[in-house]
Every structure is written in C-alpha cells, then in structure tokens.
C-alpha cells in the first residue's frame, strides 16, 4: 500500500481522547494514579504534536494544569535534615522529567523552578555503579532513570548533579550481545531501554552531533544494535520491543527513535510503519498498542511522536506533524522554549543547537 492509500490520521478524535483523559480516568486505571504526571505529559504531548493545545484547551485550564504541576514540586526534602534527602522522600525522577516537559508544552516561564533543588535531587539519586534510582536513596534503578537524569541535566544545561563518566560506564555495561541495551547489566535487550541508553549517550556533554560517531558507542555495538533494532520491525510494519515478541505501537517510537538517533532512520520501512500505526487507531479516538486494542494516552502520544520522526512524502496531509526533538522527546518548538526558559542562564542571541 502506498502512502496515498492510507486512511487519514484522525487528529480531532485523538485530541478528544487525550482531553477526556485529562479530566478523568475510569476505575480500571486506578493503578496509574501515582503516575498522573506521566499521563499528563502523554496527553499534553499529544495535543502539542497535533498543534491543538490552544484550540482544544482554555487558558483557565492551562493555568490550572500549570498550577497542579507546580504543586508537585517538592520544595525541601521530607525528613528532619533540610540538606540531606532521607531514604523515604518521594520526589520521583521520571515524574520530574515529565513535569518539566509538560510545563514547557504549557509555555510556563519556569520562574518557580527550583534548579538547585533538582541538582541536589539528582545527586541523591545516583548510585555507586553510576545508575539512578527513582527517588533519593531508594527505589528501583535502571536505564529509564539514567535517561531522565540526563534529559533533565541537559534541559537545565547544568550537569553538576550527575557523575557523567560513571553513568556512561553503567550504560555501556547494559549493552547486550544481541545488540541494544538491557535494564541492567546481564539483562535482555529491550526497546525502551535501548532508546534510553542511546538518547543518554547522545545527550551527554561533549557529544555534539547526532550524525557524527559517538565516542561512547563502539562500532561493534552500533552495528549489532542497528541490526537488532531493524530485526524488530515485523512484516506488519510495527516494531516489537524484544526478540520474538509481538509488534506494539509504543515500540515504533522506542525502536524507531533509536534508529533515528543512530542516523539510520532511512533504513526503516516507512510505508509499512505508517500503515501499522494507522491501523492501531481506535474508532472513537486514541491509539492502542495493536489493531483492535483499547487506546490510552501513552500509546497515542508515542505513536504520534514516532510518526513525527518518519514523515511519508505522499501521505495525506492529515499525517503531517511538526518536527520532533528525538533526544528530549518533544516537538522542536517546545524544545526551543525549554532552551530559552529552563536553564538558569540563557543566551538569547545564540542560535539553538539542533539535536
């Protein structure tokens, strides 16, 4: 099937799905209650990609969301010592990352951002082996947290919270013989963690260009990672997250973006890719993990983000999406906003570094 034969992207319906999720979620979703910031980000991100933040939401709602987001910023460590985090404080690394992105999408001025607090928080989360835990001195640790720490530091343009060498060394230990990267050293390669590893290695300070060889990725690692990623594209066009698993729309982003970061996005079968994601659209709005599956904001956002990275020339205009910053996982316009408002010192005259 050529690009021109594809069904349309149901933009209005998908925006509607995320808008509804922003108001309320059913009881079947109780388990994501603690991850509201992440769900918020997937919804805001969807609206951002569809260019409908201002169309579909009112200023009073956006103000409310910004306020809600700031309400989640912990101003001091919980516990008796105001300088040290205890094991049981609960600002969360992944939620911090999604909160910053959400605020940027909502065009907040970031006056309230506690930059020093965040840097201290990152320091408290990094372990001996270079990995990061979800909360200070506790919680699970794997490449997702490393990625969030790197993304946050890069957005702050302040790496004093991270021991980069140790973190890079941890990432490299997660490299799997199959290609790709596992959650931890000795783990099986997974699509999500492969994205986290590669995005981190390309965000690391002193690495400037997506298309130049990366000092932290050996030729061999690169070659077998490309091979493993490409093998994960099923004949349906969708990507699976691991060897011998089924295709899933979210891996179209995790694996697709990984290939994009490695500079070999052209090797993806783009028409099949689009056709798979088109078939994952749910008839009442939203995108699910596979055709006929129920949609959710996570799969909706990641499908659109994947589509933004792999535009198809002859596809219907409904499929046209803005450029995506693959390393931060947000639109380039939002990335520009971040560069201008998140770091403590911004040099407005300088042209932004294209990643």
């Amino acid at each position, binding site marked *: 099937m050529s690009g021109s034969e594809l069904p349309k992207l149901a933009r209005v319906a998908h925006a509607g799905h995320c808008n509804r999720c922003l108001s309320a979620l059913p009881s079947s979703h109780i388990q994501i209650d603690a991850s509201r910031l992440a769900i918020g980000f997937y919804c805001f991100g969807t609206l951002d990609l569809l260019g409908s933040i201002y169309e579909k939401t009112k200023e009073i709602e956006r103000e409310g969301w910004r306020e809600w987001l700031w309400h989640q910023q912990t101003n001091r460590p919980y516990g008796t010592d105001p300088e040290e985090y205890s094991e049981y404080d609960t600002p969360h690394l992944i939620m911090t990352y999604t909160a910053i992105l959400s605020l940027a999408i909502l065009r907040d001025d970031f006056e309230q951002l506690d930059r020093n607090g965040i840097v201290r928080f990152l320091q408290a989360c990094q372990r001996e082996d270079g990995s990061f835990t979800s909360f200070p001195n506790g*919680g699970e640790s794997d490449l997702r947290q490393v990625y969030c720490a790197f993304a946050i530091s890069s957005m702050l343009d302040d790496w004093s919270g991270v021991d980069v060498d140790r973190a890079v060394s941890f990432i490299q230990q997660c490299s799997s013989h199959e290609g790709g990267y596992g959650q931890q050293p000795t783990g099986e390669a997974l699509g999500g963690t492969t994205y986290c590893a590669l995005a981190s290695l390309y965000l690391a300070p002193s690495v400037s260009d997506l298309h130049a060889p990366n000092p932290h990725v050996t030729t061999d690692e690169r070659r077998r990672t490309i091979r493993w990623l490409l093998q994960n594209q099923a004949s349906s066009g969708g990507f699976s997250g691991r*060897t011998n698993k089924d295709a899933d729309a979210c891996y179209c982003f995790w694996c697709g973006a990984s290939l994009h970061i490695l500079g070999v996005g052209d090797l993806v079968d783009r028409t099949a890719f689009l056709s798979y994601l088109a078939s994952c659209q749910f008839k009442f709005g939203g995108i699910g993990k596979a055709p006929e599956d129920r949609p959710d904001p996570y799969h909706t956002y990641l499908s659109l983000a994947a589509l933004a990275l792999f535009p198809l020339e002859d596809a219907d205009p409904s499929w046209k999406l803005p450029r995506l910053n693959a390393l931060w996982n947000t639109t380039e316009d939002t990335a520009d906003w971040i560069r201008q408002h998140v770091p403590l010192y911004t040099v407005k005259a300088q042209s932004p570094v294209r990643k």
Partner: protein
Amino acid sequence: MHGVKRVQYSQAALEAKKQRDHDKLKAYLALSDDVIARKKSHDMSNEAFELTTRLLRMNPEFYTVWNYRRDMFIESLFPQRSPSEVNELLSDDLSLTFELLKQHPKVYGIWNHRRWCLEHIPDGPSPDDVNGYRNSTWNKELFVVEKMLDADARNFHAWNYRRYILATMPFPPPPKSELAYTTRKIEANFSNFSAWHQRSKVLTTLWETGELDRVKSIEEEFELVRNAMYTDPDDQSVWIYHAWLIGNGNYAARLQFEITSIQELLDEQPDSKWDKKALVDSCLELLAKLRDIDPPRRRRYDEIAEGIRSGNEMQ
C-alpha cells in the same frame, strides 16, 4: 494500558458497571487521601500501617505508599521488637508481594519492595545461627521466581530478579543447575529468547570458572542450536544465539561447518570453494534473495551490499 481488555456490556449491565466503578473510585480516593494525609503528618501507627496494606492491594503501583510503609517498618514497627517478630513481619510482606505479583507481575514497585524485605531480614534465630532466617527466606525465592516464570516465561522483571537472587543469596545452587533450568525452559519453547539469553550468561560464567571446557561446550551448543534451527528455522531466538556462539570462537573449521549446515537448510548445494570472490558473490546473491523475502529490511540489505561492493573495489 498494556493488558486492559475490552468487554461488551448490555445497557443494564453497563449502568450497573458504571455504579460499581463510581463506588470503587470513591472508596479508592477516600482511602488514598486518608493515607497521604497520615503520611504528611508522620503517622506511624498500626492503624496507618493497616491502611497502607489496603491501599496497596487496590493500587500496588503507588510507590509513595510503599515508601511510607517501609518508613513505618524502620521507625516504628521494627524498633522494640525481637528479631523473630521482625522476621515474621517481613515474611508477611513477602507473602503480600507474592500475592500482588500474581495479579500484577510487571509492577516495579512490588519487585522493589520484595528486594527491600530480603535485604532487611535480621540476624537470627540465635547467636550461633545468625544466618538462619536469611537462608531459609532466600532459599524460597527461587521457588517464587519459578512460579512467576511458569506464568510468563518472558517476564523480564522475573528474569532480572532471578539473576539478582542467584547473585545475592547466601548459598546459591551451582551454575550447572541453572544451565539445566535454561535447558528445560528452552525445550518447553524454542522461541523463549529470555531463556536462551540466560543460558548465554550462565555458560560464560561456567567457561570463566573452568567448570565447563569451553571448546567442548561450544560444540554441544552448536548441536543444540542446530536441532532448534531444523525444528523451526523461522525462530529469531535461535539465530541470535547462533550468532553469539560464532562470536565466541574463531575457528575456521567450525565456521565452514556452520555455513555448510545453513546452506543445506536453504536447500542449496554446499559450496566447497571459499576464496574471497566466491564469498563476495555468495553474499551478494544471498542479499538479493533477502530483499525479496524480507521486504521490511530491503534498505538494510542494500546498504550491506553496497558496503561489500565498495569494500571489494577498494581491494
């Protein structure tokens, strides 16, 4: 989200479901507000502890509440209690997390809490036997993770946890018994890549310690993989494992044997000459075939062919 199923309802049933949902949500939100308020006011009572149990049963992904629970263990439940009582409290939480894992096998917070419990088992039962509690509890963990892998042999949380247990338990079983475990899992299902992956890790250890002779072992592995290949040549796991084996031994004779084997599988005449030109032509021919039978990766094969041609020209 992953795993939420679609069900069809009649109008009346839909109304009833809506009401149940509404009540469930109301109860959840009330409980959640109560627990968080108590956490903020540093409530370390038994009552608060029971409430966290109730809340975690409804929402085991609520990491803040797992943290609060651990806080209560450390600050109020453990102090003033004997090692035997502490051990019992932790055993109860291990039972709780096992129960929750059966319903929620991929929730990071539950696996994480389990690790925390294991790592906080006290010395005991006596000064002569300070590791008794630990040994008995840790020894049960392999059983727990086996149950989880029986339910879902690809659950990477369970496999990672299995590796953690084997690396940390006081008296782990010998690596050869883990090798046997991977054999069982592979024989149950060749496409279980997680089992092949684990096998590669265990073998590496056995080769490094000298427990298994590397050369002989690799021969046996090639045999195993050839069986799998001929049983199901479409299985990705087998080829990735094969590539790993090849990478682990640079024996020209072995390479030649493998190439011959694979050519037989492709129903081709095994090639006897292996000069450079023959190899290059053979590769280009195979790549052309691959383009036809594996369209999603067309561009990749073109790229590889280009690389071979230009490399060849440079010589």
